């Protein structure tokens, strides 16, 4: 299934984009939704949520993914422009690389609403609705520290080094953890957001040093990779694993007691409010909010795990 597919299914009907299923309200034109690759459930959730919201508000939607290739992103935005979209909801492909394309769209009279990742410029996009990565990172780190009883050796798995969030989160972790001298970082490795790579790297790190009490990862995919490695090494029960994102898989792992915690980004929430603000802007020329809006992440632990669904509170 997936957002993308639904639009594919009715594309035979010589229909460029999927019309609103509800049909409620006047067909208010096209909203282009552009996110990173849907092979990551997080971005899929974003796409699904904003698509649903937009169609509920009576817009047509087109969903595409730029696979974190800034050039492809700029091409997709070109496409949206040449199709005179009413608005663009974008989870961008790079804080600097995206400024140009966003400006391009704005100059073409198409408001852009950024979600999840911000860009290093203001006044270009109409809104930057970002889950507060550093707050989330600190939240996760805090609970990590407590679970570690403020001491012990730990490993940090960093995301793709050419991705802003990787560094922001890494910094958030360090800001907190560095306050506790008894917590020692024994290895910091990049696993490129990837589960298999995290698994392999973790196994190797374990070989280098079995005396590990904690693993904190830049996203849940890598955290789960680490969990698999620790399980294989029979160390899982002694090691605290904390991730980031709040993916369903991670929440399941938390319920199963394999992971300690994760910082959930309310992706769905951000996506929906982005569409709402787009709607507001289209109807009466302003979002009624200031550009930079950060949505705080929520800590998911065994205690509250049941309260959360797909990147959102139930």
């Amino acid at each position, binding site marked *: 299934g997936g957002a*993308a597919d639904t639009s*594919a299914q009715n594309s035979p009907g010589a229909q460029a984009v999927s019309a609103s299923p509800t049909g409620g309200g006047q067909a208010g034109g096209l909203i282009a939704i552009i996110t990173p690759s*849907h092979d990551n459930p997080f971005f899929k959730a974003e796409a699904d949520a904003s698509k649903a919201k937009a169609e509920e508000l009576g817009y047509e939607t087109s969903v595409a993914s730029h696979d974190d290739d800034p050039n492809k992103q*700029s091409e997709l935005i070109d496409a949206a422009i*040449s199709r005179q979209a009413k608005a663009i909801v974008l989870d961008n492909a790079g804080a600097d690389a995206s400024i140009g394309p966003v400006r391009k769209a704005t100059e073409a009279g198409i408001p852009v609403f950024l979600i999840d990742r911000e860009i290093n410029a203001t006044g270009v996009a109409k809104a930057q609705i970002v889950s507060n990565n550093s707050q989330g990172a600190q939240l996760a780190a805090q609970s990590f520290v407590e679970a570690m009883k403020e001491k012990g050796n730990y490993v940090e798995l960093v995301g793709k080094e*050419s991705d802003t969030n990787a560094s922001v989160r890494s910094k958030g972790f360090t800001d907190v953890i560095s306050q506790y001298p008894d917590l020692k970082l024994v290895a910091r490795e990049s696993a490129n957001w990837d589960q298999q790579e995290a698994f392999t790297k973790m196994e190797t790190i374990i070989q280098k040093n079995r005396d590990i009490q904690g693993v904190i990862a830049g996203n849940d995919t890598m955290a789960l990779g680490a969990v698999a490695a620790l399980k294989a090494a029979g160390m899982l029960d002694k090691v605290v694993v904390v991730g980031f994102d709040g993916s369903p898989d991670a929440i399941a792992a938390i319920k199963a007691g394999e992971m300690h915690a994760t910082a959930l980004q309310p992706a769905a929430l951000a996506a929906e409010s982005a569409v709402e603000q787009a709607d507001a802007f289209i109807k009466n020329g302003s979002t009624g909010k200031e550009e930079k809006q950060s949505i705080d992440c929520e800590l998911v632990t065994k205690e509250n795990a049941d309260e959360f669904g797909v990147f959102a509170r139930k």
Partner: protein
Amino acid sequence: MTSPGTTTAPRATDPASPEKAAAAARRLSLLNALFELRAFIALAVLIVVFGLLSDSFLTVPNLITMTKHVAINAVIALGMLLVILKGGIDLSVGSIVGLSGVVAGELLQGLNLGFVDLIAYPPVWGVIVLCIAVGMLVGLVNGVLVTRFRVAPFIATLGMLYVARGIALLISGGSTYPNLGGNPELGNTGFGLLGSGRPLGLPTSIWIMVALAVAVMLLLTKSPFGRWLYATGGNERAAELSGVPINRVKTAVYVISGACAAVAGLIIASELTSAAPQAGETYELNAIAAVVIGGAALSGGRGTVRGTLLGAFVIGFLADGLVILGVSTFWQIVIKGAVIILAVMLDQGQQRFKRRGAAVSAAAASKRPEPAA
């Protein structure tokens, strides 16, 4: 030791049935003409289909936009064409795209001259020249590995794929170079024009593609180098014995390919007015696909600029068209693969058909009796 072939189709068909032969010849050349256009056809089909399915596809602005997207792959593919004509392959172009962008970024940020502690800001043209030089350098390494050290092109360029990408990441520390606009008082502005400029209403990148295409076409069809290249790809030993400097020819194509990739990298960086080290990943595959869809043979010696451009357009229009139709990204991947295979199968089909057609017509001719020589 002995040669196949004694007579060409026209001459072979025996005197007894000249008109039949002529007819056969006509039929065939017609079929040819038709098939030679297969990339055209593929493209035409795409345009018609998408045109019908979406009214925003066949608009002038959209066509221009799509052509602009095609340009990047086309520029890389033109370099790749030369390498493939030689019978080689260049997997490192994608990494060169990234590297050249990063170098541009680094230079525009100003390069710190350690000894005297001041920062030099090379002018834009200087930056461009240096980036292309970097691309050519990587190409040179490829060439030397292939010619001097006899490393298989696939492996040599595979290795450089990693090396160049790694260097790009090291230079940039993995982070992206922001606003390459440059700034006036440093006199290094204007880099953005490469991407955003629109001389005569068309984006610069399209002009670059056109210029490059013309240049390469002249190189291939008019210059001795072109002839040497086709000869080297067709039969290296024979070329060598005819005094063709095959090593220089081979090295040259990798250098040119590197330069083209570097140009593509500059276009991208300038369009985004920022340079990311991971730019250009897997672009080599698109370039190779374009060249092959354009009718070139990976074994070397066969291929044209026209075909390569058409191939690039097929791939580019397909990608954009599917987005416009809102086809799921997953289906896009499947369709892309299918189209690559189909386009090439069409080519094979053509060759086969030609042979059979010929045989049949000739056989017909041979039926009738004739006086013993």
